[in-house]
């Protein structure tokens, strides 16, 4: 079975995010990028499927700071092929453009299964998975936590609110949006990654033109206003605890 895992890097929310002077985008000068955590789970799920039933795993990512390290990490976990999409993304990348570039890449290699993170926190025009599925004329099921597959079909455990799980049967080839892998992404020791750097190769594919159509542009970006924010209780832990007891009493909880 051939499994492709498109992944993307997103702003790390550990850092304070700021808006650029135009007020229409994130200020990239302070931006630190990190793997979209759902994509990390998608890679783990792909590796688990490979370990169970054999096959080849290809991880695809658009060029960004830190992407090489992540691709090598994926290889250290067991990914067979690493592909990096390069090109001039200065005009901005959106999910539609990414999906089109991925569809171009994947239509020839014909993967049986495409696993990708169900969402990323900066998707303004939807997640890549469903877009890619439609471009490749494959079915899509998202919010998947747990996959098993045979030659021509996959059984996906789709999560619904309240802990209800729907077992969906999907004819392959298909795209699945991964919410969580069956186990948390495994740890890869630093030296393993270094070793892989010597043995694995990242294949680069240049994207000549981005087609952003179908996406949206924000005319303004801002941080949630402080008026919406909570009343902050200040003081030592003891003092804050006293205030909270007061609030709880007021609310009739005590």
């Amino acid at each position, binding site marked *: 079975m051939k499994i492709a895992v498109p992944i993307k890097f997103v702003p790390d929310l550990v850092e304070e995010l700021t808006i650029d002077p135009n007020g229409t985008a994130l200020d990239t000068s302070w931006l630190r990028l990190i793997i979209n955590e759902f994509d990390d789970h998608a890679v783990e799920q792909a590796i688990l499927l490979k370990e169970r039933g054999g096959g080849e795993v290809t991880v695809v990512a658009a060029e960004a700071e830190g992407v090489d390290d992540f691709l090598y990490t994926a290889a250290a976990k067991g990914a067979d092929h690493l592909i990096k999409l390069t090109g001039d993304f200065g005009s901005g990348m959106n999910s539609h453009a990414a999906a089109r570039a991925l569809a171009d890449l994947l239509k020839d290699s014909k993967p049986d299964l495409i696993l990708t993170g169900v969402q990323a926190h900066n998707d303004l025009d939807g997640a890549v998975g469903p877009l890619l599925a439609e471009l490749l004329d494959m*079915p899509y099921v998202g919010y998947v936590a747990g996959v098993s597959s045979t030659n021509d079909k996959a059984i996906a455990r789709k999560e619904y609110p309240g802990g209800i799980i729907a077992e969906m049967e999907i004819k392959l080839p298909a795209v699945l949006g991964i919410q969580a892998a069956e186990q948390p992404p495994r740890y890869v020791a630093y030296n393993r990654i270094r070793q892989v750097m010597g043995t694995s190769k990242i294949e680069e594919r240049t994207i000549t033109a981005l087609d952003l159509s179908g996406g949206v542009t924000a005319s303004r970006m801002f941080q949630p206003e402080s008026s919406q924010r909570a009343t902050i209780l200040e003081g030592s832990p003891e003092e804050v605890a006293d205030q909270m007891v007061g609030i709880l009493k007021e609310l009739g909880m005590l």
Partner: protein
Amino acid sequence: MSQDIFVVIEHLRGQVADISYVMLAAARALAQGTGGKVVAILLGHNAQELAGNFSANRVLYADHPALAEFTSEAYQVTLASLIREQSPRAVLFGHTTIGADIAGGLSVKLSLPLVSSCRTLNSNGKFVCQICGGKIMAEGDLPSPTALVTMAPGGYKLEEGQSDQAPAIETTAIPSLDDLRVTLKHYIEPEAGDVDIAKEPLLISVGRGIQTKDNIEIARELATALGGQVSASRPIVDQGWLPASCLVGKSGKHVRPKVYLALGISGAPEHVEGMNESDTIIAINTDPNAPIFNVAKYGTTADIFDLVPALTEKVKQAAGVS
């Protein structure tokens, strides 16, 4: 080409999802600007009665055995023909396990623009989305001709999307739903937890900030002192520190207790979705920029490991006195 606003109603196992009313409320706001009608799109099988309390001008009802329960492909095929036929100004989907599965495919299939994770829509045709885990809001003009929008909860109250008057229901034609590639095999019930957190008046909810499984004990002690229950955000359940029955959020329970005390929860939209209907939210998080403070009524950046034990003591004293 119409100025109508379509709302794709979500329901699961005979229950209309809360997000449907949020979308109806948003559609109402948007329709005031466009001058169009609010049209609820209900897909199902013998499910007309679900539409009884929709605040909509009309309901388009598609009935087919393959639509009895949600599957992405059957929904997409049905909706594609409907949207193509009627060209509404906008189609609202939930930014949920249902809506987010189908909106993207329709965007490509119909070559229509897609706006994701939208919190509010206004009569000027502007959308406001929350991105970056709720830390950033993005505003823009709703794209044309037909904007596909996935709606996150939080911008509207459920009542705004409900009505005492049952809307008119029209049954619509269904395209062929044979040879579907996605089929629902069956549902798996969640493992029954000891308690149903959705019924608790007070929840002490723990998130990543609790750091270790052992530390959950301090939340449990406070819960015992206050007579509440412990619930959790996604990372805690993913680690297996608490059972899935304790999960609050998009893929967990939607709760609305009188008091929701969030310990070390950052407040990502997926979590907030499950608890923002709570009467009073109190958040404890050392990160002053955590989005949880945007939904909380009270907050503090004190360290949970100092504050919570102190609070537990004081609660015990207060309870002893009264």
